[in-house]
């Protein structure tokens, strides 16, 4: 079991012949992901890496290959169009890796995707990996191992750092999801918490947040009210100055809201074990897993 992606995932890669798309498609294929099709307008009829058929449109790819998920590696200017296309083609999972998608585009993409019942992860995210089953996006496969910890994060390399710590300590993961660093995105912490809570193969959840917005605070409330599995959390950006965008479009402290202190307090109030350093994850996860059999409250 897992959340969002698994062995049944039949993936179409949008932008498969581009620089990033081709690089990561090779990595996904190597990992054993079920990449069944690629899309690049005008390259329909070709094959990628001699195996994956390329189509002009996602609709065609779905019709011909029965794809059920898409991953998007197209430049920012075309990313919204790619998300519309994937949703229109009836795909149930859409992962948008592209960084730099205009937020105004997302205000229209998000309702469109929801009206069609699709799950969008991202944009500006590393995607997800269910170790041993499939990787959709760019999370390095070699730092992950199958196991029973679910991980959800707003960032990329910070995720790798933490996953790496876990794996090196012999703690495997059910699924790792990077929801992305943009202010408006398709999947929130709460969406992932709910899925992990319902996933019988997940025993504990690691949640990596950062400054900006109130998604972590809302997630904390959700944890308190509806999550019975133990949760370990981290907030990046304690030293960030207000009013500056810390790389991620979403990582910005506005006035007095969205600070790390506020979020850490919300986590603690919800009974989430808060790491002071990324390296703390191993100890906290071990401690919490030891008590897994009883309910948190």
């Amino acid at each position: 079991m897992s959340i969002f992606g698994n062995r049944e995932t039949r993936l179409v890669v949008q932008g498969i012949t581009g620089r990033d798309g081709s690089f990561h498609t090779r990595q996904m294929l190597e990992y054993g992901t079920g990449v069944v099709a690629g899309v690049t307008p005008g390259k329909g009829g070709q094959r990628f890496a001699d195996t994956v058929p390329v189509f002009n449109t996602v609709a065609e790819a779905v019709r011909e290959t029965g794809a059920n998920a898409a991953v998007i590696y197209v430049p920012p200017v075309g990313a919204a169009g790619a998300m519309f296309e994937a949703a229109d083609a009836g795909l149930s999972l859409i992962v948008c890796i592209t960084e730099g998608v205009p937020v105004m585009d997302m205000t229209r993409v998000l309702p469109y995707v929801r009206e069609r019942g699709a799950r969008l992860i991202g944009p500006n995210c590393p995607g997800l990996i269910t170790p041993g089953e499939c990787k959709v996006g760019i999370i390095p496969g070699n730092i992950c191992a199958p196991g029973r910890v679910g991980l959800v994060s707003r960032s990329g390399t910070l995720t790798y750092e933490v996953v790496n710590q876990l794996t090196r300590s012999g703690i495997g993961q059910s699924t790792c999801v990077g929801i992305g660093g943009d202010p408006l995105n398709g999947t929130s912490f709460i969406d992932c918490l709910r899925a992990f809570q319902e996933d019988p193969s997940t025993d504990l959840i690691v949640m990596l947040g950062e400054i900006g917005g109130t998604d972590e605070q809302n997630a904390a409330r959700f944890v308190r009210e509806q999550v019975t599995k133990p949760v370990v959390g981290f907030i990046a950006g304690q030293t960030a100055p207000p009013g500056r965008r810390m790389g991620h479009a979403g990582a910005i402290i506005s006035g007095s809201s969205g600070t790390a202190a506020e979020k850490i307090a919300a986590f603690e109030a919800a009974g989430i074990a808060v790491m002071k350093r990324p390296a703390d994850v191993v100890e906290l996860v071990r401690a919490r897993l030891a008590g897994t059999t009883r309910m948190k409250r």
Partner: protein
Amino acid sequence: MNLHEYQARTLFRAAGIPMPDGDVATTPSEAETIARRLGGTTVIKAQVHAGGRGKAGGVKLAGTPGEAGEAAEKILGMTIKGLVVQRVLVVPAAEIASEAYVGLIMDRATQRPVLMVSAAGGIDIEEVAARTPEKIARLGVDPRYGLLPHQALGLAFFLYRDVAQARAAARIMEQLYQVFTANGCSLAEINPLVTTPEGRVLALDAKLSVDDNELDRRPDLALLRDESAEEPSEVQARRANLTFIKLEGNVGCVVNGAGLAMATMDLVKYYGGEPANFLDIGGSSNPDKVVNALRIITSDRNVKAILFNIFGGITRTDDVANGIKTALAQFPVQVPIVVRLTGTNEAAAVSILQGIGMTALSDMDEAVQKVVAMVQEAA
């Protein structure tokens, strides 16, 4: 990206929002000329990306063109919140019967633009929100339909009882929504929206922030960037495709990924150090980026040591090592460098660094502790 008031005014007026005439000046004599053209009493306003200009003395009233020139003389060159004033806006002084606030922000929670209005205008809206939240009306706009006429009018009646004024304000809200969406804004604000004694409704101020992600497809907006109002090192970093924010500490940080970069800064602080900057070299690991990063960081005199924290995924750690090697060959780096790298092509990276007499650590905590210790020794 924040626009200056005079830039936002241009977009507002193009959308039909009624605003007093006016123009921008970079010298006192220009200001005087504009004031003469406008006639009557004028207001001279510092054009800087900072709130509280008025309190800082950056807004002055001038009864005559000569006074306008004098006011501009005083304001130009003034430093407000660390920013030097290089331009002033000259506008006619309006007689004001009432002041309101109208603003649009991109709301993360509801994932749509939110229109906020308050009859308590002219002051900081965050203050109003904190003290008298009941004085603010909010409305989420469904981007599929846009701001509908009845929604704008409903909010306008929250501001004005008079139907002519309400209709005028509703129209301004619709125009503001157009400006907001057409330019990919994260914020569009009129504060104050005033009524004149004759009953006209006018926007007396204009504030716009554009989503940085819009700029690639909107060269017209990108042109509005005023690099003279920014920290020079940040301008240099942006041109090198680096995300860089200067801070006050002494530990220079070079990291790949925004989240890891923040976590690295936090860890520096955790171990008693002070980060000198946020710097994300991004996903693709062009050695040139590393060279540029080092150039920018070393130009900061406060920096006493530099920490690399690279988790190689897409980023190839050997590219980073090569970047360090190239930089050290090109210019002298007077402060010690601590390198932590792990992941893609780690072995190659380690051997490149060894080739120039450097060692690489693989553990983040260890690297941060080491660099902090170095800085503390240096002190």
